[in-house]
C-alpha cells in the first residue's frame, strides 16, 4: 500500500504491507531504529514519536493511516554531535541506564513541554484553566506513559527540569 510520510523533514514514498505499524515502517523499512519496540501494544512508550507535533505510540498505529503526515523521531531531534538541550540534559543528569526507553522518553518529553507551554492541564494540575507549572509532580505525571525498568525516573525529571530552564 503506497504511503507518503515526511520523516524528520525528508519525504519518503513507501509501498508497505497494510499491516505494517508506523513503528515497524521506521525500524524495518527505513533503518530508523531509534524508535524502540518495548511491548508492541501501547503499554510502555518506548516507541513514542511525534506525528504532526503530537506524541503518539507508533506501535499502536498503522503506517498507512499516516499518509501525508509529518513524523519526528529521535533521529530528527538531535544527533550524537548535535544533541538537543533535552538530550544533553539526559546525558548530564544520567536520565537513562540501559538506554532502551530513552528515545521514547525524550520524544515524549519534547512534546510534553509543548503541551505545558500550550496550557494543557494534566490529572495533577490544580485548575483546569490555569497554566501548569513545571513541578516534579507535573513532570512525573505527564511522563508516566514512558516506562523505564532501570528506573532513572528521578534523573529523567531532573533532566527535563534542567532542559526546560529551571522551573519550580
Amino acid at each position, binding site marked *: 500500500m503506497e504511503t507518503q510520510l515526511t520523516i524528520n523533514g525528508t519525504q519518503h514514498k513507501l509501498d508497505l*504491507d497494510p*499491516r505494517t505499524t508506523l513503528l*515497524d515502517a521506521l*525500524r*524495518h523499512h527505513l533503518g*530508523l*531504529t*531509534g*524508535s*524502540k*519496540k*518495548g*511491548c*508492541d*501494544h501501547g*503499554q*510502555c512508550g*518506548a516507541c513514542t514519536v511525534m506525528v504532526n507535533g503530537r506524541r503518539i505510540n507508533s506501535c499502536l498505529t498503522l503506517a498507512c493511516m499516516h499518509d501525508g503526515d509529518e513524523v519526528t*523521531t*529521535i*533521529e530528527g*531531534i*538531535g*544527533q*550524537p*554531535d548535535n*544533541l538537543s538541550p533535552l*538530550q*544533553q540534559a*539526559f*546525558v*548530564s543528569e*544520567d536520565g*537513562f*541506564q*540501559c*538506554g*532502551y*526507553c530513552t*528515545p521514547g522518553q*525524550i520524544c515524549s518529553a519534547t512534546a510534553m513541554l509543548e503541551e505545558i507551554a500550550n496550557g494543557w492541564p494534566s490529572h495533577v494540575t490544580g485548575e483546569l484553566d490555569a497554566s501548569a507549572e513545571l513541578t*516534579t*509532580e507535573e*513532570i*512525573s*505525571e505527564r*511522563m*508516566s506513559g*514512558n*516506562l*523505564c*525498568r*532501570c*528506573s*532513572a*525516573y*528521578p*534523573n529523567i*525529571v*531532573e533532566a527535563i527540569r534542567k532542559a526546560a530552564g529551571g522551573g519550580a
Partner: protein
Amino acid sequence: MTEHFKMDAPATDRRLDDMAQGLVGAPLDRPEGPLKVSGTATYADEWQVDGLAHGVLVRAPGNSGRVVLANRNAVARMDGVLAVIDDDRLLRNPAQGTANEAPIQGPHHAAYMGQLIAVVVAESFEQARHAAQSLEVTLEGGTLMPVDPTTAAVEPQESKNLDQGDLDAAMETAAHSVDAIYTTPSHSSTPMEPHASIATWEGDDLTLRGSYQMLKYNRNELADALGIHPDRVRILSPYVGGGFGSKLGLAPEAVAASIAAKQVGRPVSVALQRPQVFEATMRRSETSQRVRLAADAEGRLTGLGHDALVSNLPGETFAEPILQASHFLYAGANRRMSMDLARVHRLCAGSVRAPGEAVGVTALENAMDELAHEIGIDPVELRRRNIPEKDPESGKDYSSRRFREALDSGAEAFGWADRPGVKERREGEWLIGYGMASAARVNVLMESQARVTLLPDGRARVETDMTDIGTGTYAILGQIAGEMLGLPRDAVDVVLGDTALPPASGSGGSWGASSSGTSVYVACQAIRRQLAERLGGEEADLTLKDGSATFDNQTRPLAEILDGDEIVKLAHLQPGDTSDAVRQATFGAYFAEVAVHAASGETRVRRMHGSFAAGRILNAKTARSQCLGGMTFGIGMALTEELAFDPRDGHVANHNLAEYHIAVNADVPQLTVELLEERDDWANPMQAKGIGELGICGAAAAITNAIFNATGVRVRDYPATLDKVIAGM
C-alpha cells in the same frame, strides 16, 4: 604474555589512591550517552543485515502433553512463509546464569504454559506474525500438572540447611519474640528491550547479535544447544536494553534464530513479544518465608530462624537463595534455617535482580520491625544492637562493613528522629508513616579477562567481552584505565560485548564492575611497569597524568616515551583465598515515608532515602543510578508487582506491562542516595564491591514497615495492594 592475578591476600596498598588523574569515583557522564539519547546505539534487533528474514515464536497452550502442530503444512504455504520449525534443539526454557551448557531442550512436550515450541519464519515480520498466530497448536495425552507450590511435591534443599544451638529453646525463653510468615509473589525482570537475536551463518560459522549479559557463558550455551564447537560461535552484544537477570543465560529466541537461519539459508531475526518475555524467560520464584526472632529484654537477638519455600520447574536445580544474607546480617547464637523447593509447572524460576536477598532480606526486615514494635524500641536501634562482631555462624571476620554508619547516616539524612508513632500522623485523608529497613548483599569476585593497549599516540584501548546492561561499564572501565595510565577519560576507548574479545565475568550478581574492572586494573599495572622499565625505574616511582609520565623529576609525554611502539597487556583475574577467608558483603539502610489513603488504602511513597556502603565507588553518578534502580524495584515489589498464575494451568494471567505493574514515573519520588566512603581490601585491588543489586535488598520492607507506622496494618503478603491494606484498617 598474560598477566595473571589471583586474589589471595588483601590489597592493602590501595594503589588507586596514589594515582594522579582523578577519574576513579568521579561522577562522569557515560561515554556512550550521546549514542543512547540520539537513538543511534545499536541494540540486538537493530543491526542492518542484508536479506534478513523474520521469525515469530509460538507458545504451548498448556503445561503437559505431546505438542502437535495441527495445520503446519497449511501455515507453511501461507504468503511469505519460509519455514515452520520445531527442531529438537529448541530450548524448553532459558539457561540459568553461568550454566555454561544448554538447558533442557525439546519442543515436543509441553512443560509449562507459554513454553516456546515452534518458530515460524517469513520474508516479513507481518507475514511471520500472521502465520505464527495461524498455527494451531494442540497437546495430546496431557493432564494438568501441579502448578501450586503450596500443594506440589517438595524437595528439601538439605545442603542449605543450618541448625546451630537450640532455636526452639531460645524462642521459649525469649523476653520478646516474633514468629511470622511472609509471602512474596513471583516477579518478572521484564527489561524494556525484549530478548532478541539476529543469527547469521557464514558456512559453519555463526554470528549472533543478541541481548545478553554474560557472553562467554552464552557462547558455550549456544554452541552446546546447537551441537557445534564454541569456536564457531561469535556473539555481539555491545548494547543491552536491560537484563536484571533475565539475559544471564541463553534464551529460546537465540537458538530459534540460529536454527532458522541455517535452515532457510538467510539471516533471521527472532524477538520475543512482550507477553513471551513474561511467559518464557525467567521468573523470580514466589516465596513463603517463616521468620523467627528471639530477643532478650533489651532487644539483643538470642535466636534467628528463617525457613523458606520456593519453587521451580522439574529438572531445574536453581532455588531462590533466600537465606543468603540471613546467615550473616544479625547476631543470635541459636539459628535454624531451611529451604524447600516445590516442583511446579510454571515458567522457569531463575535470577531476577538480587536473587535471594531481594525477597529474603525484605522478610527478615519486616520481622525486625515487628520485633522493634513488640519491644517498644526504635527500629534503627534494634538493628544497631544486633550487629555481630564476627560472622555468627562461621566465626570469620567481616571484610569492610559500614553497616552501623549507614544506619546512622541514613537516619540523619532522612530525618528519622521525626518519626511519628503508629497511626499518629494524619494529613487530611492521608495517614502518614515512616519505615526503615537494612540492606545487605553478598559480594562476589569472578574470573575475568581484559586487554589494554597503550597506543603509540598516547591513547588507550580497553577490550573485553564484558557487557554494559545499563550498569555503566563503558564509563567505569574507561575511568579505571585513565586513572592508572594518567589519561583523560576521552583518551580511552572501551570496546565491549564481543566474544572475539577476552572473556570477562559478565554482568550479574553485582560482580561485573569489580571483576572486569580488576582485570583492566591489572593490565594497566603491567603497562605501568613496562613504562617504568623504559625509563629505567620502578613503577612505584612513576606518576602518570594528562598523557605524560613524571619520573625522577622529569616529565615526558607518553607518545615520546613509546617512540612509535604500543604496549599491549592481557590480564587474567581469578578469585582466590580472600573470597573465603572473610565474610564479604555490602550493607546499607533504607528510609521511607508513605501516605496511605484512609478510605481506599492506596499507598503513595512520598520520600525514600538509601545510604549504602559498597567499597570504593568507581563512578558516583552511575553507582547512584544503580541504587535508584534497585530502590524503585523495591517500590514495585512493595506495592504492585506480582505475576498472577492461573490456579488451573499455571499460565501467567497478567503477561503484559498494563497488568504487571512496574513502577511508573509518578510512583517514584525524588529518591535520595548516599554512598559512604569505604575501601574493602579483601574484595579486590580496587577495594570496590558490587552495587548493582544492593538497592533492592530489603527496600520493599522499608515501605511496608512505613505502612504499618501509618496505619497499624501489617501486610505480610506482598504486594501491599489496596485490598490488603484496607482489610486491616
